[in-house]
């Protein structure tokens, strides 16, 4: 397996008035090419913060303060990694939406209420596909041009020609900002809108031309989520991050969206990082699973291993809390509450709730242990055993 993106000891803190929220406490995970990685854990354990840190879109007052996010996005050399945390903001802007995209939890809030659907999808193309679109417009212009071009038309054509070579050309940028003059981009916008309609249609929304002219409040939650997906998919990213993309939708829509994601995974995108509360969804869709607890990744394994042989006490508790069809014993909930991340417990952050906690767990943080079969776990129950053995 070749990795697509890898985090190493990612640390993110929020500087709030109540104190420093230590939301990520050294998270290391790998998403491989062509796989779906599931991230599970209780509410507030830092799943969203983890993926937002990877994209560097943490909002104030948060800061990514340690670790690396290594991306292997180079199509020619898949082993050449780039640490995203070291890159400029401009580099990230160019990456976001083009190579990594994200779908958010709350479709009702994820769209700008006063911008038309078409314009919001078109932005993706205008940010990332200017060059290709300018070339397309240029070709269309040359096809149409029977009569000699009038002076303004020639000027417009020249600007498109420049854009097709380099969309960041200073003259293009300047004329794109001046009032009135910037109208030369009309055809570029029209082309972006045409592509938006195309992708909206591809996501199974009937009558996409009409939908593109509507505003978010005109659409249902499921429709809005499809639009959010359309925005994320517009430029066929390598990695799609779905942050509880279906949690707030009703069950039938949820199933439709998941089917859509599975289908897209086969046709459009390389890898998916799926955050969810629903272990059933994980079992159905994911290849690998990471379990998070209070800012730590406590266990990572292939999906069958995790469900059949969970190692970390928290993972076991989580699986026992899921109702099953053939339930033997009682349904157990996890005792205790999620710790406050301003003042997390010392040592293993799970120890106050852990039925198997030992003396060392209260003092020191457990190292991650690799148990063979690509199964790793951060827990003292496994540190003193030789690698690969590890029964509970």
């Amino acid at each position, binding site marked *: 397996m070749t990795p697509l993106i890898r985090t190493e000891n990612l640390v993110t803190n929020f500087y709030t008035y109540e104190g420093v929220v230590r939301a990520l406490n050294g998270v290391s995970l790998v998403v491989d090419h062509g796989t779906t990685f599931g991230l599970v854990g209780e509410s507030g354990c830092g799943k969203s913060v983890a993926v*937002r840190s990877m*994209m560097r*879109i943490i*909002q*104030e007052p948060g800061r990514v303060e340690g670790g690396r996010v290594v991306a292997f996005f180079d199509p020619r050399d898949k082993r050449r990694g780039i640490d995203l945390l070291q890159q400029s*903001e*401009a580099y990230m*802007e*160019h*990456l*976001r*939406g*083009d190579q990594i*995209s*994200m779908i*958010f939890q*709350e479709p009702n*809030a*994820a*769209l*700008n*209420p*006063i*911008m*038309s659907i078409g314009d919001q999808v078109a*932005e*993706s193309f205008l*940010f*990332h596909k200017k060059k290709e679109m300018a070339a397309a417009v240029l070709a269309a212009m040359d096809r149409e041009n029977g009569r000699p071009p009038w002076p303004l038309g020639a000027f417009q054509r020249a600007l498109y020609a420049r854009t097709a070579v380099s969309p960041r050309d200073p003259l293009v940028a300047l004329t794109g900002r001046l009032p009135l003059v910037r109208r030369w981009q009309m055809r570029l916008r029209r082309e972006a809108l045409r592509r938006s309609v195309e992708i909206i249609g591809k996501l199974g929304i009937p009558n996409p031309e009409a939908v593109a002219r509507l*505003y978010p*409040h005109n659409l249902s939650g499921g429709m809005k989520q499809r639009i*959010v997906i359309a*925005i*994320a998919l517009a430029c066929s990213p390598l990695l799609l991050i779905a942050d509880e993309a279906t949690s707030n939708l009703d069950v039938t829509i949820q199933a439709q969206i998941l089917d859509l994601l599975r289908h897209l995974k086969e046709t459009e995108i390389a890898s998916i990082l799926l955050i969810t509360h629903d272990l059933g969804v994980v079992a159905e869709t994911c290849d690998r699973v990471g379990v998070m607890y209070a800012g730590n990744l406590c266990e990572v394994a292939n999906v069958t291993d995790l469900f059949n042989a969970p190692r970390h006490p928290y993972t076991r508790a989580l699986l026992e809390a899921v109702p099953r069809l053939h339930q033997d014993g009682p349904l157990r909930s996890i005792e205790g509450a999620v710790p406050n991340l301003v003042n997390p417990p010392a040592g293993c952050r799970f120890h106050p709730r852990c039925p198997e906690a030992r003396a060392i767990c209260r003092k020191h943080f457990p190292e991650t242990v690799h148990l063979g079969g690509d199964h790793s776990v951060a827990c003292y129950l496994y540190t003193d055993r030789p690698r690969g053995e590890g029964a509970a």
Partner: protein
Amino acid sequence: MLTYILRRFFFLTFVLFGVSVLLFGILMTFSPERRAAAYVTTPQQAKDIPRIIQQFGLDDPFYVQYVRWIKEVSRGNMGWSLVAARPVGEAFWRYFPITLEMNLYAAPIVIFLGIWLGSVSGIHRDSWIDHSTRIFAIIGWSLPTFLFALVLLMVFYGYFQMFSPGVLSDALAMSIIDHPDQYTAYTGMLTIDGLLNGRLDIALDALHHLVLPILTYVIVVVALNMRVMRSGIIEELSKDYVLTARAKGADRRTIHYRHARRNALLPVVTVAGQLVAMSMEGSIAVEVVYNRQGIGWWLAESATQLDMPVLMCICLFMGVVFVVTNLTIDILYAYIDPRIRLN
């Protein structure tokens, strides 16, 4: 849309009726003698008071007096202004351009400066620019307008001899009066008339006299606009759609100006009505302190003399301004926010 506007203008007549009845009622609480005394200038005339009451029916019942007033107004007779010593209608058009001129210059400054400073301080929260605009806003918000105007007048005119009160320097005013054939008052606004008459000196001098009034006015009125814009920007920037835009690859410029600012403008439009009210209040203090004979000055002078026809006229005018402002706000709102439909 058109029916909506027409309906709002139909509604205007009720507003004006309500405003006039209310004000008329308040003025009626003064005794007939007190109101008649406004027309008496010397002690000898005091014996005429009963005759004046008799002649104008000042002790008739409320509704009789009100209906009489309405009748006169509908015939185009708004009454006599003591302060201006001419009919109210004529006096209004004489004072109105002075106030309009000041507002024409101040309003764009208030609107654009407020929105701009508000956005910048919201985007660069807790930076030096945020702190300085906050101080600016606190001063403008908490000092009474007349006090602020007086302080500016004392500092600039009293100490530096820089900006004199009034609307025009005496020498230029005399030159207009001495050669009435060389100067036509097209609009009544000196800066514009000066240009239209080819008298650049008059236009510039009038502009020079406008500096302090506009400064006072802008600092007092811009605070609200600026703070609402600032908190709007901060709130919008924390919303989820901003995250979607960032995840799309939007640069800061696009996020701030294309996404957040347009949304943050909605609350600013909502407080525009309050801004208009504040600017009217501001006009009174500014015109009195800087001795500019506009509507605000006229209102203050007439109020102290209990000059009823003038007070009624100005209140009706304000009623019209408010209704038109609110109508403009509604239309603007529907234009910015697709969720709003006028019907």
